[in-house]
């Protein structure tokens, strides 16, 4: 078990004062799979990503990367160990060009400029390489954030709402890119996302959070059919998006 590559969170609990943000959440991701984490706003999805990426020390539970304990490790070391995240707020280096945003990171990995271009191609931004990051559209900024995260050659990638602000078509393209990415690089992907079309089409497994607890897990079809999920979450979303 210890030798198998995986990102494993077990029994994660997070309390802010008296408020329970997460309680007993367990989740394992293995290379080559896309796991979706869904739930209403405030369900604890971002807090969970914060825990996995070392931004939030859990009150209880453990996070292990292929058997290695990540709990209490500062976030930049977690990233170096192979668990890289993106942010809802994107946080690009806005005054740098698109290529430079990736190159700043690829430089760390000692990769050539050519590989920066290839990363941009992965997310469909190669033609925008010389634009300033701040000049990109909202959805292109999210794609760039993914390319930049990939420049670290992660084993596990945690995407916090990558499709926010994207049109249905753009989200579809993103979904295809994510699938290719996982297939080509053999990384494990955790997708936190509100766009149900995207989640349902790319994820092999879903975990549903509600008020900090896991209320369902399974394949997209199983989760969609789960009455508890419908009641807590999907029911609130207009028909057709679920």
């Amino acid at each position: 078990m210890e030798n198998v590559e995986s990102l494993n969170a077990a029994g994660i609990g997070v309390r802010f004062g008296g408020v329970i943000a997460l309680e007993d959440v367990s989740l394992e991701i293995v290379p080559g799979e896309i796991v979706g984490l869904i739930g209403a706003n405030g369900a604890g999805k971002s807090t969970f990503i914060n825990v996995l990426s070392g931004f939030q020390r859990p009150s209880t539970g453990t996070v292990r990367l292929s058997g290695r304990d990540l709990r209490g490790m500062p976030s930049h070391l977690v990233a170096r160990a192979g668990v890289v995240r993106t942010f809802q707020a994107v946080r690009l280096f806005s005054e740098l060009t698109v290529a430079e945003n990736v190159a700043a990171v690829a430089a760390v990995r000692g990769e050539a400029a050519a590989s920066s271009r290839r990363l941009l191609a992965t997310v469909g931004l190669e033609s925008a390489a010389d634009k300033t990051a701040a000049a990109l559209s909202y959805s292109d900024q999210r794609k760039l954030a993914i390319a930049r995260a990939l420049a670290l050659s992660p084993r596990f990638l945690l995407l916090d709402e990558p499709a926010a602000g994207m049109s249905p078509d753009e989200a579809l393209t993103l979904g295809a890119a994510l699938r290719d990415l996982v297939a080509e690089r053999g990384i494990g992907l955790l997708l936190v996302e509100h766009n149900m079309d995207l989640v349902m089409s790319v994820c092999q497994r879903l975990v549903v959070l509600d008020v900090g607890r896991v209320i369902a897990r399974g394949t997209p079809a199983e989760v969609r059919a789960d009455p508890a999920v419908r009641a807590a979450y999907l029911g609130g979303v207009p028909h057709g998006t679920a």
Partner: protein
Amino acid sequence: MTWFVQALVDATSIGSIYALTALGIGLIFGIMRLINFAHAEFITIAAYVVMLTIAFGFPVALFAAAAGVLILALLSERLAFRPVRGADPSTLLITSFALSYLLQNTLVLIFGARPSGLNILPELSQPILIGGVRLPIIHLVTIAVTVLLLAATGAFLRKTRMGIEMRAAAADFEMARLLGIRANRVIAAAFGLSGVLATAAAILYVAQTGVVEPRLGLHLALIGFVATVVGGMGSLPGAVLGGLAVGMVTVFLQVLLPADLRPYREAFVYLAVILVLVLRPQGLFRPASARERV
């Protein structure tokens, strides 16, 4: 017309020195959100090193000053600023004041508070005649050296890995660190570069004024700080343009103010600064992209 060309060259020359100072301060602020008042002493100490070594010839003095201040800047980072990195900006500011006073008073202790004369390159203080305008060579040299240094700094920041990492760190330090950019290396490099810029500013300034004293850098650093604010905190081109702008305003006020108001020139300079801050609080040259997103 002659007076205008003379004043313009004067203004560009002094503005160049302000620009180099502002760039040195702006670099560190951009990355660490530290307003490094000890930059003043980086400049002063460069001038004293030149004074102590000029007997061995200018190239030796130049090298000694650059190397000395580079080491001083790296030591300051390691011993004074790294321990408080990530503390809130006021702690950083107070730390830089403390370091500044420590270095300044050490200089007073060693060299005394009185100014000493220092003629770095006497041949440069000669004027040359260009189209009927008398221009001190040192002004032209100052402008040329500054243009070269700014171009070199720009190329470093755009073309080298370290430069791109430095700009990334300036844009979002935490994110840069998260993405694996080595914070210690980038910050040390920024301090090193800032030290080199301080040395250049010191030598050009002393070559013009011919005087070295323990508070020499303070005047420049204060103006350099004002220039970064006027130019737009966090923008390096802004810092450079801000420095030039302050130089321009200072010199043209000197020329254009009625004789009995000239002693109050500085008051008018700072009045202009206040006006800028009231009308454009984000600074004159700060690009829209640099604004915080909400």
